[in-house]
């Protein structure tokens, strides 16, 4: 059975994962804690915590709130900063078999570029994942991810600053995610991750206040899956680069659905909070699904549920005319 996939097929050396199951940024810390919990080298990939140029303390409490079949978070990117990451954490990653992508975010395109430059060529760092669901201070605090030009610009500055494959993680909080995906593809992105969390909130009727210290937070977990599945399907119709799906992957069945919608890989996030072995549960479930349905190559699943692939459709029309 072939499980391996390539997330950067345009590159000479690609970004090969032994299987399509990764962990999602901010839901696996930097991967070190769970070395003792399960064999993380069995995973296709790990994505680091959101990393910024300088260390951040993160947001005030409460930082999470449970919602119906989901949760909200506003952690606020508490992290040790890129320099400490390079000095203390990357050397640990360098001894692992599983590739690690660093999730980065900046306040300005210049900060993204500096992050990308700092991480370029660092042993243990296999790729960058740009988190563009954060405010661009140069654009008056508008999120990069909601604007085609801003998203393309930040992608381009990172690509110029590093040789590493660049994954752009899109925000789902837009009216037309396909156009953002197209913009970052044109800017040269190797892959897109669909998607970050959906903006939401919860209110405590007892205190008459929002539950989260910051008011709003990102919704994740099984509750978001139908929305993100639709967005993966839409993006798959718009771009040719690989898509990584992120949103409520709890089981192998969820992974299969995302692959069929057009994703090449999936990320497991919130599921790991409910079941520490969730990434393995998803991987084992995917393998079992393939065995049961006699599928030999995971790549055959990619886009399998897309009604009529556009290219085939055109060929048929041509043949019929």
């Amino acid at each position, binding site marked *: 059975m072939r499980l391996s996939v390539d997330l950067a097929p345009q590159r000479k050396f690609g970004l090969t994962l032994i299987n399509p199951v990764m962990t999602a940024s*901010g*839901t*696996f*810390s930097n991967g070190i*804690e*769970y070395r*003792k*919990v399960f064999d993380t080298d069995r995973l296709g990939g790990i994505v680091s*915590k959101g990393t910024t140029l300088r260390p951040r*303390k*993160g947001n005030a*409490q*409460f*930082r*999470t*709130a*449970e919602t*119906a*079949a*989901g*949760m909200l*978070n506003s*952690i606020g990117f*508490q992290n040790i900063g890129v320099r400490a990451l390079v000095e203390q954490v990357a050397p640990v990653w360098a001894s692992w078999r599983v590739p690690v992508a660093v999730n980065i975010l900046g306040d300005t395109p210049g900060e993204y570029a500096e992050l990308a430059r700092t991480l370029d060529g660092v042993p243990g760092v296999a790729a960058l994942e740009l988190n563009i669901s954060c405010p661009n201070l140069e654009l008056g605090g508008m999120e990069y991810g909601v604007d085609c030009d801003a998203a393309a610009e930040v992608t381009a500055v990172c690509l110029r600053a590093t040789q590493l494959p660049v994954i752009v993680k899109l925000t789902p909080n837009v009216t037309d995610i396909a156009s953002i995906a197209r913009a970052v593809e044109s800017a040269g992105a190797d892959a897109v991750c669909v998607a970050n969390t959906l903006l939401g909130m919860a209110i405590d009727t007892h205190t008459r206040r929002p539950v989260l210290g910051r008011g709003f937070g990102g919704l994740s*977990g*099984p509750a978001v899956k139908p929305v993100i599945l639709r967005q993966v399907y839409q993006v798959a119709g718009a771009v040719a680069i690989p898509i990584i799906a992120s949103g409520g992957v*709890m089981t192998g069945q969820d992974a299969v659905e995302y692959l069929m919608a057009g994703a090449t890989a999936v990320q497991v996030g*919130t599921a*790991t*909070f*409910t*079941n*520490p*072995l969730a990434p393995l549960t998803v991987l084992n479930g995917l393998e079992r699904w393939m065995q049961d349905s006699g599928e030999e190559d995971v790549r055959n699943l990619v886009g399998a549920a897309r009604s009529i692939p556009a290219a085939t459709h055109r060929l048929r029309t041509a043949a019929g005319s």
Partner: protein
Amino acid sequence: MKQVTARVLECRSLYRDTFVLWLEAPEIARRARPGQFVMLRCGEGYDPLLPRALSIYRVRDGDGGPELGLLLEVVGRGTDWLSRRVAGDTVALFGPLGHGFTVRSASTNLLLVGGGIGVAPLVWLADEEVARGRSITLLLGARSAAYLYPALLLPPEVELVTATDDGSAGHHGFVTQLLPRFAPWSDQIFACGPAPMFQAMTAPLRAVQYRKSCQVLLEQRMACGTGICYSCAVETRRHGMKLICKDGPRFELRDVYA
């Protein structure tokens, strides 16, 4: 940390809104120390989604190895679901998690301070340290007499001093008001309760110039319980940002509360 599906051995009401849940989870019970906790799923589907943190209340010997006891106050849907388990049901949990209390070998007089359900992790500490021959005084505060942990369930060697908000039992007022009387006697303090209790401990301890160790078990909204989500962060005075689940839940009082 072990993840297990444990059989419920016993679940019964002990006092107002509070239940004891005994689980067959020898892999966890064997490794656990007083002050550590577990994360429990409260249902089988995706709702409620997140596991709940519960301190390890007691460990006892059973036929199939050590048994894990939890003391839970019903405050919402998760704890309500847990309180309705019956013998033979199963629950999914993982643990033991975090760092428990550390008792210095030179300490002979231990002062335990519990507020409300905060008594849970102190009972096992009392069990173990009484067995080691240490002197234990437990100061216990609750809303009213009905919410007080029953004295009969403690080892007889433990001196129990109670306080209630409404005066229905023991001292009329907060448990922290008892500190000036007992702190000077103690070699170490161990406390668990709501955040306002910890805050209220600082002034009386300062007043008696208490310079010894006062270990507190902190509580915060958790999602993972294992250091991967950063939900439970707390800013410490001397060691910067820490995660309660991974670096705690045990902290020195003076490192968190001024």
